């Protein structure tokens, strides 16, 4: 919205008579502007974005969200903020004056049509400098923060396109005003809904008066399972008699199966994302106007965010047509409903519609592309032609000027200021087409010709808004750099605009788009006689440079040489348009390479820094993901939110509570989450590199912002003897954390295979080595004496325990895995471990300094052929008084042994437990369930049916252990769930059956349980983090659900696969994010490429 002029507005009866005069004067002003600026050159690309907000007030007590009519108060508070003012006016409309350039520029705020709306723009225009591009998102976030700071308690700036319950029967606004006022005459919204500045009520009233009835918006309702059908909007009041317009509904204005709305506020109260570019000169501006035009509907579908109107889910996804109808001032004659009598012509489109002209002086613009039904004012066009304007541009403006001016100030009619722009702008700015071509303003010589891209919907987060803004800017550069030709006939763009409204059009529908966007280079003519020439002959002529020395082919081409226009374009999915043909089998005839590949190719032609490129990739990934369906549009997300809400009755109605929860979630998301992408699990992922191959990792328990990483480096196999190296290295958890802390590192001539901190003695770190021993280290923290801040973390060798003797030929065994027992045995730390020689051992580790007592180190069982034992788990079952030891090995065997603890309870036994007296008994050796090595076992504990609080039957049969669940991971690329049944395992040699399985390509090397919780009543969720060996890492959800007859269903689901690793992933670790609820911060490492990757996953299902 431009500066708001003050004056005395004319009612429609007077304005109607002055319309011709305003148009003629507007044309004179346009001619002056055009003459002054047609040769203007502006070397710089400058651009700006506009973000529009709803102001929503959340009433926690009543669990209700209301639109807050506080625009004026917020702007007032902003303009009075002394701190902000130091940087220049922050609300130019209130404070007057131009924004001071070249100062530290804070964003500026502007009023909008709705009294519940705010608009914010950057304080100064952006350039194409990448530093600027990377500031956009931060600036948008800052705008939101500043706006929020100047709002009342409980009020939030929300970037939803529309308020879901605008126009419902309850008090959806605060303060409350009853509907049916004199200006809007709406039965749903009060006049107070609009900005009280005289321009806005006048605009609304004059549209209604010109039209001869209220505006009419009928949006098809979303037909859900329990929606009454046929659907008759239950909120329509057929018995209102305040205004003549109340008859509209009795005359059939409200259509069947539609949500009906009757006021400008339902359209103009929508929030949009608009981008304006300054072109180099008028010609470049005209090219951009034309070339961006076919992209309007595509970007509308990609940004779809509007699934709810007036408290109902609707069957469309975007706002566009609603705004179009909300300001449609056409009479019945102009609409073609009755024959022309008083009006001059029938007009096919509303003032707010897709654009109808191409304006470039471009040899590639074929006459067939133009709109055959274009209505223009011939007289005004002639005036422009007489004034020297070319036909193409004159046609464009003569088309815009078929409309009547809607708000005329009496003061303006006294005298024509030929150097002004008020009359021109009166029509220009009330033609709301999806592209706008903007001449320079007469009062600011610094501004050039501009093009505005207007179709996009506002997105819920600043990350998304920045992504789409920057994408459009980059596209504009791509168009100019590659000299792209995206022309299709204008009526096809009009059709596309309709298609973009369909629910999930972004995935399910096809759009007309040009097949080959590249310049034609085939038949250069005429042939220049080619003299053999000296290669360094200086070019003497001052002619315009030509392509490859030939005259630009298209310029000389006649239409007759060209293929039929209809062969130039075809129907494509948004995915084909955005991502190109490689991503999905599409129309083979299409050569369209995809806009994202084009943008990437463009970026690779520039000097782009690594960090910039990665930032930009985040934005491109969002757009690529929207197009291929891997990321949802806002509309899909909102629709999903409503339909999954427990209060939603599947009858299309969006209740107050659902709306409250929706807005609350959106607000909380923005406050808590850095960006939208993390919500969808595709968070900003970064990697570090190590100097040696990492294979194990552990979080430092007392300083969880640090990890210890164990490495194992083997020299090339050709070296004899092969040398081994390894290290323990402390690193920060996140790549950018804790730079000032000195972090220790120890290097060895052996490798580290596994790492565990002791569960009870947090500072003890056990490390399994390739030298047949487990070494113990202590992590010590040192603090700065003055500041008391952590200064360094040191690793100190403590003692070591030999585990496996040498083989006969002197080879030392790799200790492949170990696990501390949760309880001390005989007051000593104890552990189970597996070795390269196939042994699974139980070890009572001596205390530091004592000579290791090898008798307290027993083999529980052995894998066949002495193939490697890979992993083991020991569980103390206090009910049956036994220790269960499970292990897996390279021979595909899963072995379970038991050690009976004689007499009394385990707690009594443990103190005097002497391993030499134990006789482990092999319960079962299963080799049927795995087709390759068993490398991971994870003990899930009691079956949910016997979980804590439910296990009453345990007391009934004290000799029985409850059924247990455990998981295995194997080289055979499966994760399996097993049930170890009761009664007592001791007697049981029964078969082990897999009760659940999922194929995870690449293998399963490690399993970590992140979380367990219950959803619904009887569904237990286990969230598992998997080191996926050859294909990265996985987050997998295991659900155990009790059916009606007490039978259980077990299901695995991959929640996320992290695929950025290019080598074997051996180690994963995760911790809860401190800021974002439900988010896990994960580290995974890969071996040969020595990478540590940080990534995130958000558990959307956890309450």
């Amino acid at each position, binding site marked *: 919205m431009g500066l708001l002029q003050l004056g005395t507005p004319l009612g429609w009866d007077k304005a109607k008579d002055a319309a011709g005069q305003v148009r003629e004067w507007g044309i004179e002003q346009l001619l002056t502007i055009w003459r002054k600026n047609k040769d203007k050159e502006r*070397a*710089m*690309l400058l651009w700006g974005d506009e973000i529009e907000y709803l102001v929503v007030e959340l009433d926690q007590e009543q669990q209700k969200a209301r639109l807050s009519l506080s625009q004026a108060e917020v702007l007032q508070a902003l303009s009075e903020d002394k701190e902000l003012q130091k940087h220049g006016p922050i609300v130019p409309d209130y404070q007057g004056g131009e924004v001071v350039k070249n100062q530290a520029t804070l964003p500026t705020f502007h009023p909008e049509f709705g009294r519940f709306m705010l608009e914010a723009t950057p304080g100064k225009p952006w*350039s194409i400098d990448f530093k600027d591009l990377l500031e956009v998102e931060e600036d948008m976030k800052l705008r939101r923060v500043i706006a929020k700071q100047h709002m009342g308690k409980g009020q939030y700036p929300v970037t939803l396109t529309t308020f879901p319950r605008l126009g419902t029967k309850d008090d959806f606004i605060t303060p409350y005003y009853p509907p049916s006022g004199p200006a809007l005459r709406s039965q749903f919204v009060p006049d107070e809904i609009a900005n009280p500045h005289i321009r806005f009520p006048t605009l609304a009233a004059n549209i209604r008066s010109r039209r001869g009835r209220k505006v009419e918006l009928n949006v098809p309702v979303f037909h859900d399972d329990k929606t009454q059908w046929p659907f008759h909007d239950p909120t329509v009041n057929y018995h209102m008699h305040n205004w003549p317009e109340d008859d509209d509904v009795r005359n059939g204005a409200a259509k069947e199966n539609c949500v009906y709305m009757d006021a400008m506020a339902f359209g103009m109260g929508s929030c949009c994302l608009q981008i304006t570019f300054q072109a*180099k000169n008028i010609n470049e501006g005209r090219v951009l106007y034309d070339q961006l035009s076919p992209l309007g509907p595509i970007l509308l579908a990609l940004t779809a965010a509007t699934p709810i109107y007036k408290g109902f889910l609707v069957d469309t996804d975007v706002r566009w047509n609603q705004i179009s109808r909300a300001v449609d001032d056409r009479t019945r004659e102009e609409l073609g409903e009755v024959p022309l009598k008083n009006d001059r012509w029938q007009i096919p489109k509303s003032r707010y519609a897709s654009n109808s002209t191409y304006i470039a002086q471009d040899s590639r613009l074929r006459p067939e592309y133009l709109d055959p039904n274009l209505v223009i004012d011939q007289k005004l066009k002639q005036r422009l032609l007489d004034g020297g304007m070319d036909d193409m541009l004159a046609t464009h403006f003569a088309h815009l000027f078929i409309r009547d001016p809607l708000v005329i100030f009496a003061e303006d009619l006294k005298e024509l200021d030929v150097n002004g722009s008020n009359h021109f702008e009166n029509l220009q700015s009330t033609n709301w087409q999806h592209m706008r071509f903007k001449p320079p303003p007469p009062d600011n010589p610094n501004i050039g010709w501009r093009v505005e891209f207007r179709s996009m919907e506002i997105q819920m987060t600043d990350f998304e808004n920045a992504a789409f803004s920057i994408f459009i800017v980059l596209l504009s550069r791509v168009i*100019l*750099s*590659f*000299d*792209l030709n995206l022309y299709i006939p204008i009526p096809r763009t009009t059709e596309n605009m309709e298609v973009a409204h369909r629910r999930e059009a972004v995935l399910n529908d096809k759009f007309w788009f040009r097949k*080959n966007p*590249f*310049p034609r*280079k*085939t038949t*250069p003519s005429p*042939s220049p006689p*080619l003299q*053999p*020439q*000296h*290669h*360094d002959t200086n*070019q003497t002529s001052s002619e*315009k*440079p*030509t*392509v*490859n*020395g030939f005259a630009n082919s298209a310029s000389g081409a006649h239409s007759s040489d060209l293929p039929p226009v209809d062969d130039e374009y075809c129907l494509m999915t948004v995915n084909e348009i955005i991502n190109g043909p490689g991503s999905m089998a599409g129309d083979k005839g299409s*050569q369209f*390479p995809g806009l994202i*590949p*084009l943008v*990437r*190719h*463009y*970026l*690779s*032609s*520039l*000097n*782009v*820094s*690594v*960090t910039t*490129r*990665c930032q930009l*990739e985040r934005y491109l990934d969002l757009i690529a993901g929207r197009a291929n369906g891997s990321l949802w549009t806002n509309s899909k997300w909102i629709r999903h939110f409503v339909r999954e809400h427990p209060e939603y009755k599947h009858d299309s109605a969006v209740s107050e509570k659902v709306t409250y929860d929706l807005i609350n979630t959106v607000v909380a998301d923005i406050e808590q989450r850095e960006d939208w992408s993390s919500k969808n699990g595709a968070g900003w*992922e*970064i*990697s*570090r*590199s190590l100097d040696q191959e990492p294979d194990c990792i552990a979080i430092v328990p007392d300083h969880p912002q640090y990890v210890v990483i164990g490495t194992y480096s083997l020299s090339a196999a050709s070296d004899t003897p092969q040398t081994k190296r390894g290290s323990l290295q402390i690193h920060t958890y996140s*790549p950018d954390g804790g730079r000032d802390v000195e972090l220790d590192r120890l290097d060895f001539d052996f490798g580290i295979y596994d790492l565990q901190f002791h569960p009870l003695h947090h500072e003890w770190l056990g490390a399994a080595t390739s030298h047949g021993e487990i070494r113990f280290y202590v992590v010590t923290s040192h603090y700065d004496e003055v500041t008391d801040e952590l200064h360094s973390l040191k690793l100190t060798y403590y003692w070591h325990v030999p585990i496996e003797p040498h083989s006969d030929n002197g080879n030392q065994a790799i200790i492949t895995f170990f696990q501390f027992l949760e309880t001390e045995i005989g007051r000593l730390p104890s552990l189970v471990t597996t070795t390269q020689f196939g042994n699974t051992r139980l070890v009572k580790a001596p205390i530091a300094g004592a000579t290791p007592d090898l008798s307290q180190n027993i083999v529980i069982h052995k894998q066949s052929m002495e193939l490697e034992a890979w992993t083991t788990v020991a569980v103390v079952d206090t009910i049956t008084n036994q220790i269960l030891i499970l292990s897996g090995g390279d021979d595909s065997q899963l072995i379970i042994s038991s050690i009976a603890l004689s007499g009394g309870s385990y707690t009594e036994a443990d103190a005097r437990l002497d391993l030499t007296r134990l006789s482990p008994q092999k319960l079962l050796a299963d080799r049927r369930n795995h087709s390759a090595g068993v490398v991971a076992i994870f003990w899930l504990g009691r079956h949910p049916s016997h979980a804590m609080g439910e296990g009453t039957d345990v007391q009934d049969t004290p000799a029985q252990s409850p059924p247990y669940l455990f998981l295995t991971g194997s080289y055979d690329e499966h994760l399996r769930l097993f049930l170890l049944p009761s009664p007592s395992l001791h007697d049981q040699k029964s078969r082990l059956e897999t009760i659940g399985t999922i194929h995870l390509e690449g293998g399963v090397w490690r399993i970590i349980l992140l979380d367990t919780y219950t959803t619904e009543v009887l569904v237990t969720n286990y969230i598992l983090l998997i080191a996926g060996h050859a294909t990265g890492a996985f987050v997998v959800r295991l659900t155990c659900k009790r059916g009606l007859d007490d039978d259980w269903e077990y299901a695995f689901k991959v929640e996320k696969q992290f695929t*950025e690793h290019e080598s074997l992933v051996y180690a994963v670790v995760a911790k809860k994010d401190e800021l974002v609820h439900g988010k896990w911060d994960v580290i995974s490492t890969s071996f040969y*490429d*020595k*990478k540590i*990757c940080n990534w995130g996953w958000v558990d959307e299902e956890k309450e």
Partner: protein
Amino acid sequence: MAANMKLILSTSNVMSSGQSVMRRPIYSKSNVELVNGLRANFSLYQHHFSSSNNPSDAYKQWTTQEDNTLFVPVLRPQTLSEPRESYDITVKLFYLPGIPASRRCKHTREAIDLVLKELGVQSVDLLIVSFPGVSFDADDDGEEEMSEDESASADSDDSQGLDAQVKSWKVLEDYHSRGIISQLGLSEFSSDRLDKFLPEVSVRPTVDQINVKDCCVVPKTLIMYAKNNNIELLTHNDCMDILPCGTTRELLGPGDGGAHILASNPDSPDSEPGLKGNIEPQWVIKYTAVVKDRGVVENKGYFAMAQLGESEDGLPSKSKC
């Protein structure tokens, strides 16, 4: 009859032939832009001058020979349309593998001269040099072995050692001191490599260009090193061996889509049309002119030089193409 000849291959402006270079996923390292750019430009000229009745000589219609240098196609400089200061001009010079480092001084001059002439300018803003065998990924895997190779640069190929790199850099420093190149940059240098390189040179590189994959994997050590040494890390997606000799013969040979300049084999019989002898690409230079304030790429292209037959210095060619 074997000819000894230098061939200067040019793509002209590849921005206006976007189509031919856009066919493959562009994220992977590639030389598609160069190879397709050359092919498209050759065929454009070929088709345009296909009037000759004698197909074996047809190329003479659209190439020029000056002494023993053949320009394929004839040079048609596309000078920049705006004043020089509006542009950011970056060139990247690829010294190719297996070519003796002793030729680099001459090659550098040839390559830079061609670019200056093509764009009609006196200077470029940044020259990035790509040394053969220097690959960031390779360093990642076997840094130690790599550096041993380098120190023992008396190895079979002297062109890959640090000494040769420093020597070549001195040549570029001279262009820098004469104001022809404002800034110098390197490609694919790891922090280890930079650490050895920097003390040896007087004009320090301001840029290190590395290939970035999807994951944006850049080792922290390099990020920190670059920061401390005021080196900007830029991205690129050029592949290591940007113009293999086999590709060159294919481009110039008699096959489908070839330029019909060379015979199908180095030792084809005299009866076969086309020039005979080994073909060995010597260097490639890429140039990009970007309108600074508008982010528009106005001109981007490549020149490549290939030696046919024996080179002037008489050193044996390793090429078997």
